[in-house]
């Protein structure tokens, strides 16, 4: 297994726990392309000092659950813009934690400002990227990265 996969998986689990209180799950598998989603929500960070990106994808229902927990108000009723902003912020924190763990190695990257992907299609082959899916009680979360 590539070291960054473990790093990102650990970061995902720790950030989910820290931001939502979800402590269960986290088992993950590498997959060949992003998992299929009926209604995906997706954020991407295009790296500054490397050619590549980090992407997070999940079902909309999972994204809503995560962002509502981040905001501490499960009955709040999220707007679409809050959902998109929250998914992107979640990716931002995962990337920050992974970056620190990768410091000093060949996969080290600098953080950039992430954005929401309105047109991401999960089935498209990843062209050299690595994808993994982690399973949580809240739902599956797919994380992909390409760091060159």
């Amino acid at each position, binding site marked *: 297994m590539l070291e960054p996969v473990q790093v990102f998986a650990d970061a995902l689990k720790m950030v989910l726990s820290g*931001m939502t209180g979800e402590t269960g799950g986290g088992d993950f598998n590498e997959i060949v392309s992003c998992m299929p989603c009926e209604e995906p929500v997706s954020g991407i960070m295009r790296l500054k000092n490397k050619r590549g990106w980090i992407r997070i994808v999940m079902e909309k229902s999972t994204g809503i659950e995560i962002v509502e927990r981040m*905001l501490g108000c499960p009955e709040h009723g999220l707007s679409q813009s809050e959902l998109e902003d929250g998914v*992107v*912020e979640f990716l*931002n924190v995962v*990337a*920050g*934690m992974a970056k*620190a763990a990768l410091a000093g190695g060949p996969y080290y990257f600098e953080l950039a*400002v992430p954005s929401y992907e309105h047109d991401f299609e999960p089935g498209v082959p990843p062209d050299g990227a690595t994808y993994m899916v982690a399973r949580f009680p809240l739902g599956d979360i797919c994380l992909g990265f390409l760091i060159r």
Partner: protein
Amino acid sequence: MKILIVDDSRVARKTIALTIEALGFVYEEASTGNEALDILADRSDEFSLVILDWNMPGLSGIEVLRRIKRDARLKSIPVMMATTEMERSSMIEAVKAGAKHYVTKPFTPEHLSVRILQSLGVA
């Protein structure tokens, strides 16, 4: 006491705002570094603390921090970085630039509360 929250993420600002409200303080939000500097330039006397993200479009948080600390009218306002930049070198850079405290995301409301109170000098 009024706190200025500077973060490009609306959700991040809201999570910080919830903690500030729970402490009984009031807040104002800025979504960019330039917006924050404009607010401070107009009403610097209103703010007891600035909570500042690092990675933002346009002016970065560290640059905003440096500009605050270079400005004679603003430099006495304590600044706390709240960021995903969690490497030691980043923390040192921020503290050297004048940050009073540095918290890394994700943080718990309890941790953030303590840092806010410390930054305000009321802990």
